[in-house]
């Protein structure tokens, strides 16, 4: 390249600057233009316009105010600009030699104190390049979609203010060059998640869900923080490149033991479970569906929730040194995958099904990381971003069509009314179910294979993951059948308004559908004759981990790395068998769904009736929320009330007041000496004289 853009990497900061500009502009617009709207001059603003997506019943379209058009332009445009810069940067990165594909741009020193020095610096390398492309690309599509979806929302600019802020935070998270910056983005996306989930703050359930998300995330952040402290005091830095570079030396000097690595990585993983909704901190994600649907698509499916996976992948070198953590990650991932999938079976709310599906798919990604297949994890992260965003946006389109109805039991036969939504969603469903040829198949299959074949893996993990895959196929097709097929169960009143969504919403769906099909092709495994570009692209990131692990196991460099690569290159016939098996399981799941919801639609209710307890258990998500509520929240609140009422007021304050009372009552008693009779005072003087003279005489 020539010209001013000869080195696009000098403009990395633009990737952050564009969304930030969007934040500022939209924020100003929101403050200036929307604030008076929110102030109720009288009572006409009080009716329930909480749900922006289904404002149709408000009837006649008013002329769109100019500022809304401005917002509708600025917000997606900024993200698109960021996407362009990101794309150009990645292209330039790809032209560099594979070993030197790490670009760090330092903007300014942020915190410097004692031994700590953290700069605001951006790091572009293969891993973050995947992330920024996914984030800006999918993010842009969702912004476009949102313009249509939120068109009836009064707080239009505020919504995009938040959404741009989210993009900014998320890009900080993935582009930051140190753990601390990652943490900044990490908390920033948490903030945006809080704001966007609670976007319709007048709904108690929404603001509660937002708070829950933030607090649960904070529990995870607690682990992340402590992990950072451990990293800093042992490595002396928080920069990725420095940390990675110092691993060999620290291993050599015996500071970086497996124990330390385990501590660091386990704490990091606590953070990851919070952000990426893994057991035991997944509980906030289903509730997060209270937010507008584009938010669910962007934050709670495609980008933010995958931050945990990104973090684990980013720290792969440390994770590889901690076999115990790896095992934990894999087991938690697999358990989350199957557990969440099982919860998805009975949900009636279309978004909740997708939410549990997201939790489940995130479990896959962690399973991949846990067995050392970071590439597979990141690959699935990417494909999942495509098809899950598609599914969420599709569901949003459905909800839009249904005037806000989210209960699948009140849908059906929508295929006729909303064909684009149907076809795109169907593609997404095929992708998530793992039908060969689509994006989800390649990534999921690679995870399954690694779960079986990797040195960290085991057949049990494979089996669990395969069952979860079957379950996924089942409930996703259940969703499709209930929503788009069969007899209409739609309210008559609603049915009149059912319509296909505008182009601003359907075009992103179509783009995502294409991506859900093709997105996987860049990572076709070698076993299927693919070149697996994806794995090669990410190799520089993950080889550090393998090397470190090799040092740890004393099997020095060449042998171990060769073994790892050897496993990938080796064409095991087992791989084909398992591939076939997983496809079979998926098809089996689809078949059951077809049988239960197409052939015998009355059957599911009967099954539920036959096993009332099991059904209740699953439908109520195993009562985990209630368990937490009873076990932790109630205890803490009651304990706090006790601390306040009993300890603070009844003990400390009582002691303080007691001292005061003692002094007071002592004064009360002694003042009785004051009789007011002159003679008595004279007597005291006399006594005093006697004593003083006596003392002077006989001293």
């Amino acid at each position, binding site marked *: 390249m020539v010209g001013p853009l000869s080195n696009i990497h000098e403009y990395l900061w633009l990737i952050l600057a564009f969304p930030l500009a969007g934040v500022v502009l939209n924020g100003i617009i929101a403050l200036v233009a929307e604030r008076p709207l929110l102030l109720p001059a009288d009572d006409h603003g009080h009716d329930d316009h909480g749900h922006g997506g289904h404002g149709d019943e408000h009837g006649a379209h008013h002329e769109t105010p100019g500022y809304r058009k401005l917002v509708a332009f600025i917000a997606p445009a900024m993200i698109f600009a960021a996407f362009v810069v990101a794309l150009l940067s990645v292209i330039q990165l790809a032209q560099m030699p594979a070993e030197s594909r790490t670009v760090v741009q330092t903007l300014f020193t942020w915190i410097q104190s004692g031994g700590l020095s953290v700069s605001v610096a951006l790091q572009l390398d293969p891993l973050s390049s995947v992330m920024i492309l996914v984030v800006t690309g999918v993010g842009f599509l969702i912004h476009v979609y949102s313009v249509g979806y939120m068109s009836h929302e009064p707080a239009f600019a505020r919504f995009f203010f938040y959404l741009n802020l989210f993009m900014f935070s998320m890009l900080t998270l993935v582009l930051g060059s140190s753990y601390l910056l990652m943490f900044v983005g990490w908390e920033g996306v948490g903030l945006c998640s809080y704001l966007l989930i609670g976007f319709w703050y007048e709904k108690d359930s929404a603001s509660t869900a937002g708070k829950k998300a933030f607090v649960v995330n904070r529990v995870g952040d607690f682990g992340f923080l402590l992990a950072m402290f451990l990293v800093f005091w042992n490595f002396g830095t928080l920069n990725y490149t420095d940390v990675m570079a110092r691993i060999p030396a620290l291993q050599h000097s015996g500071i970086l033991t497996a124990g330390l690595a385990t501590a660091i990585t386990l704490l990091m993983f606590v953070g990851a479970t919070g952000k990426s909704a893994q057991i035991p901190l997944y509980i906030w994600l289903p509730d997060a569906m209270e937010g507008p649907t584009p938010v669910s698509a962007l934050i709670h499916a495609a980008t933010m929730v995958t931050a945990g996976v990104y973090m684990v992948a980013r720290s792969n070198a440390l994770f590889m040194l901690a076999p115990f953590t790896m095992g934990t990650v894999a087991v938690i991932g697999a358990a989350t995958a199957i557990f969440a999938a099982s919860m998805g079976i009975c949900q009636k709310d279309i978004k909740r099904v997708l939410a549990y599906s997201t939790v489940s798919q995130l479990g896959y990604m962690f399973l991949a990381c846990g067995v050392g297949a970071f590439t597979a994890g990141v690959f699935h992260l990417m494909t999942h971003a495509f098809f899950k965003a598609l599914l969420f946006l599709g569901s949003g389109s459905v909800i839009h069509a249904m005037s806000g109805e989210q209960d699948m039991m009140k849908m059906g036969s929508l295929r006729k009314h909303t064909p684009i939504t149907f076809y795109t969603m169907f593609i997404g469903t095929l992708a998530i179910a793992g039908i060969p040829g689509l994006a989800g198949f390649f990534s999921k299959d690679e995870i399954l294979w690694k779960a079986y074949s990797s040195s960290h893996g085991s057949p049990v993990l494979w089996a669990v993951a395969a069952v979860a895959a079957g379950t996924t196929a089942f409930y996703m097709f259940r969703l499709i059948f209930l929503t788009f097929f069969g007899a209409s169960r739609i309210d008559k009143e609603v049915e009149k308004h059912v319509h296909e969504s505008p182009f601003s919403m359907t075009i992103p769906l179509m783009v995502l559908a294409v991506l859900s099909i093709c997105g996987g092709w860049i990572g076709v495994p070698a076993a299927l004759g693919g070149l697996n570009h994806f794995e090669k692209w990410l190799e520089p990131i993950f080889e550090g981990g393998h090397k470190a692990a090799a040092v740890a196991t004393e099997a020095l460099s060449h042998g171990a790395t060769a073994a790892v690569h050897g496993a990938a290159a080796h064409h095991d016939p087992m791989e084909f068998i398992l591939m076939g098996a997983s496809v079979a399981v998926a098809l089996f799941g689809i078949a059951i769904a077809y049988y239960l919801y197409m052939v015998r639609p009355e059957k599911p209710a009967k099954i539920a009736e036959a096993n009332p307890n099991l059904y209740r258990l699953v439908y109520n998500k195993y009562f985990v929320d209630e368990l937490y509520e009873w076990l932790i929240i109630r205890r803490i609140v009651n304990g706090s009330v006790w601390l306040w009422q009993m300890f603070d007021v009844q003990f400390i304050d009582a002691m303080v007041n007691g001292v005061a009372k003692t002094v007071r009552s002592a004064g009360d008693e002694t*003042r*009785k000496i*004051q*009789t*007011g*009779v*002159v*003679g008595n005072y*004279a*007597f005291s003087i*006399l006594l005093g004289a006697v004593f003083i003279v006596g003392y002077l005489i006989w001293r």
Partner: protein
Amino acid sequence: MMEPSAYLILSGILFAIGAVGVVARKNALIILMSVELMLNGVNVAFVAVGSYLGDPTGGIFAFMVMTVAAAEAAVGLSILIAIYRLKETIDITELSVLKW
């Protein structure tokens, strides 16, 4: 010549008797008189010691004490009159406004 301690002991006796009057009596008039007695006792000591030492200061002090005694009696009695007008009593146990 008399032992000077005799005067001093006499002074002490007068003072003590006066003190008993101040402490033990309820009648405000008598208490005031007892105060005069005490002052007198002190005067005896001043005068005696002054004359034994040949120093006029003792006498001067006695003189001052008498002046003060006169002033005190005048003010004290007028207070007493004022109180009597107000309370119709000279019993100091009934004049305990300062109690507690």
